[in-house]
């Protein structure tokens, strides 16, 4: 099918970028001053351990060979061993990955639930009081630092009212929903104003289109026109806005995961940086890069599905 071959060609296009990301992650360790193994293993490593590591990473080999070895290991799922945790980095990331993705999707859903009705209201009554109120509230929430808002919510809903846990991510699905509510709200509140602003202007642009006047000439009621005709068109450019924001969110969630002590990759990253756990940092660089690639791929595929004018080539 056309869509299937489109997906295949997009996957093939990703290969050079993927290679670029692995080279970057590989060189990251090489560029560290001093002997990378010494650095990786820390100052107190025994000479035997250092020797063994040299062998394992093939450090006696020329750089391109070393890269290929690194690539082979990575493809086999071997991303090295964490210095501080003394376990395989791949396992560490795998177990931290789920809470982060859960939080990300949760926060996006909250952001969209806020943005959809508010931007519809803002566009319907543009330049009226409600519109200005929504815009100003957005400016306020977006200018609140995530850690500050997080602490505020912890104090109010976590400690004073005791409605939500203040750390961890719960044991089952409902537990996750409950525990991650406050952090998801923090990220959602930071994201929603951006979504509202772009959806509002996209809605207003669409409302000016000829086919909307044609819809009115068909005697449809304003709500139907707004939802079925205006919104459906205005949502298409939102795919890009969402995608750009996911990249930003992955960065932003690092702070939130730490404030709320969520066992996700953001928290893992901060821990790794603080303890100079280089193999973990290297692996996370790789993972973040691939994550952004995947988001881009999903974005393109979403366009192909939601916009009939997109031709797959």
């Amino acid at each position, binding site marked *: 099918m056309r869509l299937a071959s489109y997906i295949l060609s997009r996957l093939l296009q990703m290969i050079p970028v993927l290679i670029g990301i692995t080279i970057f992650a590989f060189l990251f360790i090489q560029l560290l001053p001093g002997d990378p193994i010494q650095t990786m293993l820390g100052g107190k490593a025994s000479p035997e351990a250092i020797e063994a590591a040299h062998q394992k990473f093939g450090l006696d080999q020329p750089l391109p060979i070393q890269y290929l070895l690194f690539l082979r290991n990575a493809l086999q799922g071997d991303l090295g061993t964490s210095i501080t945790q003394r376990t395989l980095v791949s396992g560490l990331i795998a177990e931290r990955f789920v809470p982060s993705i859960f939080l990300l999707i949760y926060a996006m859903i909250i952001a969209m639930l806020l943005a959809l009705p508010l931007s519809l209201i803002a566009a319907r009554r543009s330049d009226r009081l409600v519109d200005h109120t929504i815009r100003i509230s957005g400016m306020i929430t977006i200018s609140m630092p995530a850690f500050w808002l997080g602490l505020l919510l912890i104090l109010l809903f976590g400690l004073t009212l005791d409605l939500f846990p203040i750390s961890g991510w719960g044991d089952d699905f409902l537990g996750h929903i409950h525990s991650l509510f406050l952090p998801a709200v923090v990220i959602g509140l930071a994201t929603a104003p951006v979504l509202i602003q772009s959806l509002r202007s996209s809605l207003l642009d669409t409302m000016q289109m000829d086919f909307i006047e044609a819809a009115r*000439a068909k*005697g449809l*009621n304003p709500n139907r026109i707004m939802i079925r005709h205006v919104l459906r068109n205005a949502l298409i450019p939102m795919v890009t806005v969402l995608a750009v924001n996911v990249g930003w969110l992955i960065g932003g969630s690092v702070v939130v995961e730490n404030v709320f002590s969520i066992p996700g990759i953001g928290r893992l990253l901060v821990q790794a940086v603080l303890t100079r756990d280089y193999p973990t940092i290297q692996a996370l660089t790789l993972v973040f890069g691939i994550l952004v690639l995947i988001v881009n791929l999903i974005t393109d595929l979403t366009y192909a599905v939601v916009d009939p004018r997109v031709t797959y080539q």
Partner: protein
Amino acid sequence: MQSSTHPSPLLSIQNFTTEFRSSGGKIVANKNVSLSIDHRRILGIVGESGSGKSVLCRSILRLIPSPPAYVTEGEITFNGRNLLALSESEMQAIRGVEIGMIFQDPMTSLNPVWRIGDQITETLRVHKGMGRREAREVGIDLLRQVGIPSPDTRFDEYPHRLSGGMRQRVVIAMAMACKPKLLLADEPTTALDVTIQDQILALMLQLQEEVGMSIILVSHDMGVVAETSDTIAVMYAGQVVETAPTEAIFNRPKHPYTLGLLQSIPRIEFKVDRLVPMKGQPPNLLKLPKGCPFAERCAFASPDCIETPVALREVEPGHFSACLYPERLA
């Protein structure tokens, strides 16, 4: 104005005046417009760009938001009801059901993310409560009626897959779905290639015969309205300056502006798009002159034309002109 088997006209516009208010002043886009159209007739409205034709059409369906537009005078009576006095929801029951509208640019008047079949059957489903399956059958019939090949597969296609002419056929099918009594066609062929223009006009005439509806056909091209209309109204600077049966407009124009338009019709042997536009510019709608709006460009003008207010007068039975000196054209 015209004899007809029906006692009263389908639509009659009386003394209709609309202005756009802004910080820059008020633009009088329609001034004291009076027109009427009988059942099963075609009324052609012709005039230069900016003469208020679209404002008039959109005002009939009350599509222009207020602000910025304000109707300061007049009545629009359709089938015995004053449209200007109806509530918004009463208007919704008329739009698309009793009065359909076709727009100028078929490339932009269809929703790009809706299948064309769903767009043309939307009024049937919303206003007539038709189910999906029945609406599909009727929709495919409509596509066939407007001359779209293999209508049952075209039904599920998106607009961008169709050419401009095909899209305008879809727009026509969409406006015709509920079999309206009146079709407003605002420059339906202006955006199309010349060869396609004739096909679309022929299609509209054929549908008008079949369905027995009336059409208001707007154009800036005297040639287009001449070929199709029973009656012609000539607009200038927001006003109707002359209206009469087509034959009378052609053979005995009673307004110098109409004469100018007639002289600018391309001869068939030349096949030119538009010809010799008249010298000069229409007046600024922000400050219309007190007297005849055409005075500045008129070859027949005398000094009092600038000062004396003009209004449509019946100069012959069924033939109305807003010129103070229609006899000067004889």
